[in-house]
């Protein structure tokens, strides 16, 4: 018993360790970047005095350990620094981008889970029949279409030809929920591939589970078909799908650059593209940190869920 209680606890402890590792890694990578930020900031006519002043104000004259300490201390107070380009606090920039990304990701996941699980279960219960073959064919076909191709196709058809929906989110100023119509096309594009992978994983897991001795035993006890399917077989089929769902959430929360660019959604992906183009190191650092923390937390939750769904599984810890 103690070992079973110890596993979730160990997995929980691992989360902060991973985040600490992400922090160290981001600092090390930034240090390893070529060039001198002070020289870059000094402008077209670098004057040695001015460079020295900038260097002092940025703390670049201190030792590496000292700078790391100061950076971590500021992080601990929630201070991610200021953008080199706009002079705004990095935290504000990230907060602006996080809103639209969160709305897109949230709406997508809320639709994704019932849709993919439903399709997977339906296909598994009709294994080999026309419904199963249709679902399997569609899921592999749709999965083969890249996001940008599907996006362009949908914009052409529904926005430009039929004029049912707005083609982009231009003019919403990041307030996507205020005009839900702009969400429809991006969410469909974001859903397209994850629905396929998760539905296929659920289908495979359900077919295994439905053929298992414990499902046969549950049927022997006179339980209804639906009850056997949803409460006996499905929980056993969900562990792989949970891990895939975590990867999808991670992907969505990091701002899907292609979709944001196509539909002009001012999310985190757009912030990242702008920061990289302008070599805005503090913003890139801040984004890397946010993405790292998101990845670690999402996978932490998924592993805890998997521990419950597959109590015998040793999740890598």
């Amino acid at each position: 018993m103690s070992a079973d209680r110890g596993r979730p606890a160990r997995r929980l402890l691992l989360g902060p360790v991973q985040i600490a590792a992400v922090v160290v890694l981001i600092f090390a990578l930034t240090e390893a970047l070529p060039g001198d930020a002070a020289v870059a900031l000094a402008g077209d006519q670098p004057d040695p005095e001015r460079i020295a002043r900038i260097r002092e104000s940025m703390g670049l004259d201190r030792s590496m350990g000292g700078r790391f300490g100061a950076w971590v201390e500021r992080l601990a107070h929630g201070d991610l620094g200021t953008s080199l380009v706009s002079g705004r606090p990095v935290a504000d920039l990230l907060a602006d981008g996080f809103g639209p990304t969160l709305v897109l990701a949230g709406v997508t996941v809320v639709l994704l889970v019932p849709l993919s699980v439903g399709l997977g279960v339906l296909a598994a219960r009709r294994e080999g029949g026309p419904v199963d073959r249709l679902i399997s064919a569609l899921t592999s076909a749709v999965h083969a279409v890249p996001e940008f191709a599907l996006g362009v196709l949908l914009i052409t058809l529904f926005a430009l030809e039929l004029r049912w929906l707005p083609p982009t989110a231009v003019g919403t100023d990041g307030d996507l929920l205020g005009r839900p119509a702009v969400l429809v096309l991006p969410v469909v594009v974001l859903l397209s591939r994850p629905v396929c992978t998760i539905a296929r994983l659920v289908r495979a897991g359900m077919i295994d589970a439905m053929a298992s001795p414990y499902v046969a035993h549950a049927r022997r006890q006179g339980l209804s078909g639906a009850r056997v399917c949803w409460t006996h077989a499905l929980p056993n089929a969900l562990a792989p799908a949970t891990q895939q769902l975590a990867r999808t959430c991670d992907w969505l929360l990091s701002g899907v650059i292609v979709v944001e660019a196509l539909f002009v959604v001012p999310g985190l992906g757009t912030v990242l593209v702008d920061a990289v183009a302008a070599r805005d190191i503090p913003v890139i650092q801040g984004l890397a940190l946010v993405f790292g923390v998101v990845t670690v937390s999402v996978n932490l939750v998924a592993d805890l869920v998997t521990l419950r769904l597959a109590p015998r599984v040793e999740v890598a810890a």
Partner: protein
Amino acid sequence: MSDAEPVAVVRGLRVEVGGRAIVDGVDLTLRAGRITALVGPSGSGKTTTALALLGEYPPGARVTGEVRVVGGGAVGYVPQHPGAVLNPVRRVGVLLRDIARARAGDRRSHREAVHEALRAARIEHPEQVVRRFPHQLSGGQQQRVVVAQALLLGARVVVADEPTTGQDALTRQGVVERLAALAGEGIAVLLLSHDLDVVRRLADEVVLLANGRPVGFGPPARVLPAPEPVEVRPARAGADDGPDADAATEVRLEVRDLTAGYPTGVRREATVLDRLSLTVAPGECLALVGRSGSGKTTLGRCLAGLHSGYRGRIRFDGMPLPRSLRGRTTGQLAAVQYVFQDARASFDEGRPVVDQVARTAVRLRGVYPDAARTQALDTLADLGLAAPVAERRPGALSGGELQRAALARALLARPGVLVCDEITSGLDGAARAELLDLLARSRERIGLSLVLITHDLTAAARLADRIAVLDAGRLVEQGPAGRILTDPRHMFTRSLVRAAGEAVSRGRGGDLDDPDGTDLLGPPRIGREPSDGDRVEPVPGRASEPRGPIGG
């Protein structure tokens, strides 16, 4: 005996798959409170008949005849592997409440019903057990949970499919008591077994099956042949003068102060073996006996280099063996070979058996592939597997054949020590006897030292020179086989020997022929004349007999 009310009736059942009858003309009448046993070797149609009672047939089966459960009530099923039918993701309480929900009443009355069923199935502390997952229960507890499910269903008929196969004597005793208790509740029990001891102790009526046809019917005393007494293998000359009298003899394998465990958490370890010391002489057979979970297999795994988490010392011919397989030289790898309990799992499904057997000679002795193949075919033929069989893939071989192939694979390394881990537990009587005989022969021919891990005292008695008894990771007693079996000194050994003896000494009488190899040992399959100078008369009709000193 036939006055009790019949609760299930099978008349003229015939199940045909692909034009071949698996079951043909079987009649059964199950009566309330009576235990009916279906006895026969594997493949005789026991399981097909039993599943017919549950309304389940193999895919594509043509069924004729009548299967009727009086009143149409539910039929409970206790399978050979109860762990497999308990949903791994759901807690025991939830699994049982699913059944209780079908009854009238509220949540509280359902919970009461669940606890009551668990208590009736002899589960102590039901309030703790309902919170566990099935994998957190022992095999015996899992079986009790399945019995509780049947009770909760209100089943009037319970089918128990090989409930004692692969269990040690004490666990078997528990199963016997559990089934007797079910019958005591007025439930009709259909027991499927090739374990004749259990059948003799439990069954009111026996139906013998062979090749799908009933070949005998009646009370066990009349239908089943007389039980064989536990045969005691006489000790080797000079080995009978005390439990630790191996000082003067040569030592091939030496284990000193072995303490082994498995990590259970951060800086925590469950100790499985506790300061264990023993030796094996060249050509000697040491049987490690004990209940499941006593650490027998862990010891075998330490010897073979499969478990490196131990303290202590293991020496082979005086040289220390590295802990892990990776640290061992090719010669050391060949010197200690291991035959696993589950032979099927130890073969690659996709390649012919003979190729996999030959690989040992190539890898461990550097033999050229062609020569290795010839040697493999020879060894397999010695063990009774002809070339056409050996050329097949593992899926086409029976469990007994695969176990012999696994033995051939280990022997081809020309090992000094062979560790056999419960290699007979999945086999029925005839296949088991045959495998033990083959092992005895191979051992004598090449002077092999054997470490026989088993819970089956009969197997130990048949082969072993010495027996070491393990309980909860400690060596509680070791000594010559004859002494341990006839004069056990430690309490635990006594209970083990008593449990095995009871199983055999009941229900004597009856002289019907063995229906095609059940648990009974027929005439000797491999004869050998008793050698001169034996101090004990060999039991007639057995293949193993006293041996002289080493090399004799």
